[in-house]
């Protein structure tokens, strides 16, 4: 007797196998990587029009030699102590105009966080990893201070606020709100990290 039911159904049992094969291929080739790192701005190549006179006491000099040793304010220092002394320098507040600073108000150190400049110098033979560690500690010093103020004013960390602000998935209403807060904290401790030309000898 001829069949009347039309074409027989295709067996879809092996569909899963095929899909698994593809799945495994993509699993193996996938690299879910979001790059992260230290954001820095390089100084523009044109020198500023006006020469700015900066008091020596407002500059915190960090010098890295080719062996990875640190010379901070003319004293040899261990990298582990760098963050603490950079923080102390930044919030010293010698002229007393900075109400939120908790520094020692040492007259021989920085006047005000907005005037304090960290100058980083390195040798051509300094290892990159050492340089990154020093950069990390200096950025960390700024972040520590900013976090402290953000905690006091808004009850949350500056770094999370900034990350939320920069995250494109944050709704724009929240972003607008964060923008002013982030700006305010940034103005309290502006990041002034200057990198001089490398010494050649």
């Amino acid at each position, binding site marked *: 007797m001829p069949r009347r039911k039309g074409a027989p159904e295709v067996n879809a049992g092996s569909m899963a196998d095929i899909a698994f094969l593809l799945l495994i291929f993509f699993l193996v080739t996938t690299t879910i990587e979001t790059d992260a790192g*230290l954001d820095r701005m390089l100084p523009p190549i044109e020198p500023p029009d006006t020469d700015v006179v900066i008091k020596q006491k407002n500059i915190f000099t960090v010098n890295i030699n080719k062996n990875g040793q640190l010379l901070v304010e003319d004293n040899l220092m261990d990298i582990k102590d760098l963050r603490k002394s950079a923080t102390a320098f930044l919030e010293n507040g010698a002229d007393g105009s900075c109400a939120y600073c908790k520094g020692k108000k040492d007259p021989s150190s920085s006047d005000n966080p907005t005037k304090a400049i960290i100058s980083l110098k390195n040798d051509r033979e300094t290892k990159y990893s050492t340089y990154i560690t020093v950069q990390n500690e200096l950025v960390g010093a700024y972040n520590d201070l900013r976090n402290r103020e953000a905690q006091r004013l808004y009850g949350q960390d500056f770094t999370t606020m900034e990350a939320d602000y920069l995250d494109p998935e944050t709704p724009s209403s929240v972003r607008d709100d964060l923008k002013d807060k982030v700006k305010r904290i940034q103005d309290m401790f502006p990041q002034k990290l200057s990198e001089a030309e490398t010494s050649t000898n």
Partner: protein
Amino acid sequence: MAKFTKKKDGDLPAVSTASLPDIVFMLLFFFMTVTTMKDSSLMVANTLPNASEIKKLEKKDRVIYIYVGTPTQEYQKVFGTEPKIQLNDKFANVDEIGSFILAERAKKPQELQNVLTTALKVDKEANMGLITDIKQQLREVNALKVNYTTYEGDAFNNLQ
């Protein structure tokens, strides 16, 4: 009584696997969408240093990558063991960076050209001399926003 004995011969019914392909396809689509194929293969050793105060690099289309490190084994015979710069798929000298950045910048849409970041993926064994030269080159073409790409971790691990 046949009514009752009949039930006995069908013991556990098999679990229906009809929806298995759907589940697998769902996973498949997930991985297909998140996959990013590498567009250039690395020709240099690239063990990044660790840092803790990092920021994420959002939006891949606004990033220009520069790799620095010692050439991998197969290239060492030709290029030596000193750290080299890799731009896209070839080794380059320091003075080629300026034109590379300008060329890459020109490829991007107009509205992104001012917000580009240069990601420096530098091997932790490299010396700062080369990095300083690169930085100088970047300043000359006004690509001032850089990101030293690192792994997340304790920065003091770098010193060992």
